């Protein structure tokens, strides 16, 4: 059985092997040891296509957007708008103006909480989250709850790390105004049944905020098919530059929402008596944006689509199965998060070795993993572990990476006895 899994993994893994060379950092070494990068759920590495898009922009087209009458500014504006169109296609948005550029997922969720939330939440209204949310899909809601008198609730999960849908349905009620759910759990890899959750939420008239930070890089995403009213993701987790993100919102919702930040570029007319605001998407993009970042982000989306998200999902899933089978041989290792549907996240603990020590020992072999609470302290508390070690895979990882991980874990076991 294990052999069959490994065999099929190897065959499917071969297909994406050629793209590894697109990532210059993967050719680096430390103390003679090759880089084994297994922390893509924290941030992904960047392909040449993204690095070159940003560099080309600064070398040939750099100017501010939406202002200059000169050719260079018009060209910069065109590239910026084109990046938005690329992200709209990537996410399945109906119109490019439904994509707001942000600094990342965190900012996207804060924008919804502060703009939509402050305008719509009343005392006693309920915000329903899940126990497996990242802090960035918890804290923004707590802040707006304090401001409006709304109440934050969390739907429980099962021991395997799946959302308890029955309990979720019970918690969903006439006071529920918004449901916040991660598409993929960063700490466990669980793929949540967002469509089902969205249908239930819409049934009671709630809007659905999807934290797509971990799904956008790894799964085909279609916001319409998901039933997402809002969907936030980060460029840096999907092969693009840091400091960039996209927030999708349905036109009717975004149109009705007040601006969040004020400034240049987001206005129609300004007088000291009254200001009217620009239409979407500019209403939510005050100030000079991260132009090069947006262009790099667009290049990343194109790069991923060029390979194909189905192929990437299949590759990463095969790698996850391969690694999951292999770590089972490490004495005293327990995988945390065994949902039926999982993205490429392998979270685990080891008897007698704290995750931080695992991280240090693996780093000695230039194997990079994350150790800690993964910005999900309520989830860690629910699972009864202070922290986990987490290896996460991306399209550029291969079996050799998984093998290096397992070898280093055996070494950790030997050292700690």
């Amino acid at each position, binding site marked *: 059985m294990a052999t069959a899994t490994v065999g099929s993994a190897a065959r499917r893994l071969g297909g994406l092997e050629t793209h590894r060379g697109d990532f210059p950092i993967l050719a680096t070494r430390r*103390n003679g040891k090759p880089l084994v990068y297994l922390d893509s759920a924290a941030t992904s590495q960047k392909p040449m296509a993204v690095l070159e898009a940003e560099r080309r922009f600064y070398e040939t087209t750099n100017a501010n957007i939406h202002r200059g009458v000169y050719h260079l500014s018009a060209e910069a504006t065109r590239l910026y708008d084109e990046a938005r169109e690329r992200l709209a296609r990537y996410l399945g948005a109906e119109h490019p103006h439904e994509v707001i550029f942000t600094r990342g997922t965190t900012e996207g969720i804060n924008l919804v909480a502060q703009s939509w939330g402050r305008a719509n939440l009343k005392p006693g209204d309920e915000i329903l989250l899940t126990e497996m949310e990242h802090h960035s899909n918890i804290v923004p809601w707590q802040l707006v709850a304090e401001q409006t008198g709304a109440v934050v609730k969390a739907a429980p999960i099962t021991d395997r790390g799946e959302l308890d849908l029955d309990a979720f349905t019970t918690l969903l009620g006439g006071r529920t105004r918004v449901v916040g759910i991660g598409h993929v759990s960063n700490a466990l890899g669980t793929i949540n049944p967002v469509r089902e959750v969205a249908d239930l939420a819409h049934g009671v008239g709630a809007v659905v905020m999807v934290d797509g930070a971990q799904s956008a890089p790894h799964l085909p995403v279609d916001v319409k098919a998901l039933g997402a009213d809002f969907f936030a993701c980060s460029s840096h987790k999907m092969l693009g530059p840091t400091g960039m993100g996209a927030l999708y919102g349905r036109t009717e919702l975004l149109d009705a929402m007040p601006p969040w930040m004020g400034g240049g570029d987001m206005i129609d007319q300004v007088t000291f008596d009254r200001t009217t605001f620009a239409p979407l998407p500019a209403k939510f993009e005050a100030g000079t944006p991260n132009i090069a970042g947006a262009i790099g982000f667009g290049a990343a989306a194109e790069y991923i689509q060029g390979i194909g998200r189905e192929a990437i999902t299949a590759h990463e899933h095969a790698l996850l199965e391969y690694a999951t089978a292999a770590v089972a041989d490490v004495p005293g290792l327990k995988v945390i998060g065994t949902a039926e549907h999982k993205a490429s996240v392998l979270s685990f603990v080891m008897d*007698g*070795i*704290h*995750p*931080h*020590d695992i991280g*240090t*020992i693996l780093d*000695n072999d230039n194997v990079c993993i994350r*150790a*800690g*609470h993964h910005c999900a*302290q309520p989830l*860690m508390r629910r699972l009864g572990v*202070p*922290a986990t070690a987490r290896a996460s895979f991306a399209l550029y990882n291969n079996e050799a990476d998984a093998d290096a991980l397992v070898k280093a874990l055996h*070494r950790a076991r030997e*050292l*700690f*006895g």
Partner: protein
Amino acid sequence: MATMNELYQNVILDHNRTPRNFRQMADATGHAEGRNPLCGDQLDVWIKEDSAGKIEDVSFEGSGCAISKASASLMTQAVKGKTRDEALALFERFHALVTGRGKDQEKLGKLEVFSGVAEFPVRVKCASLSWHTMKAALERKEAVTTE
């Protein structure tokens, strides 16, 4: 570069597995909770000083990595029987050791097993958390965090 065996010396592995003075203390004269919010390490330190200002007993409980747990265990052994000033002075020298500024580390006895930490800057906070917490307990501060 230090090897893993130099960082995780046997004494550290032993105190991690079997931490000494790992208990609560009902009649403590000082207590503080130490947290490292970035990694989630958390521990409580209890101290009992006698009327002459000598540390009569010291204990801890909590969760953390081997470095932080072993450091807490060895800290309790090192400061027991010392005066407040002696304990604080020892902390200074220990801190110098784990940050690579130590000059007279040969006089630190068992605590010298943490000399390897200096080569792992991200782990310095793990080694010093219990000491910061002990200091807070002496100074009657309830909580301390290392950022």
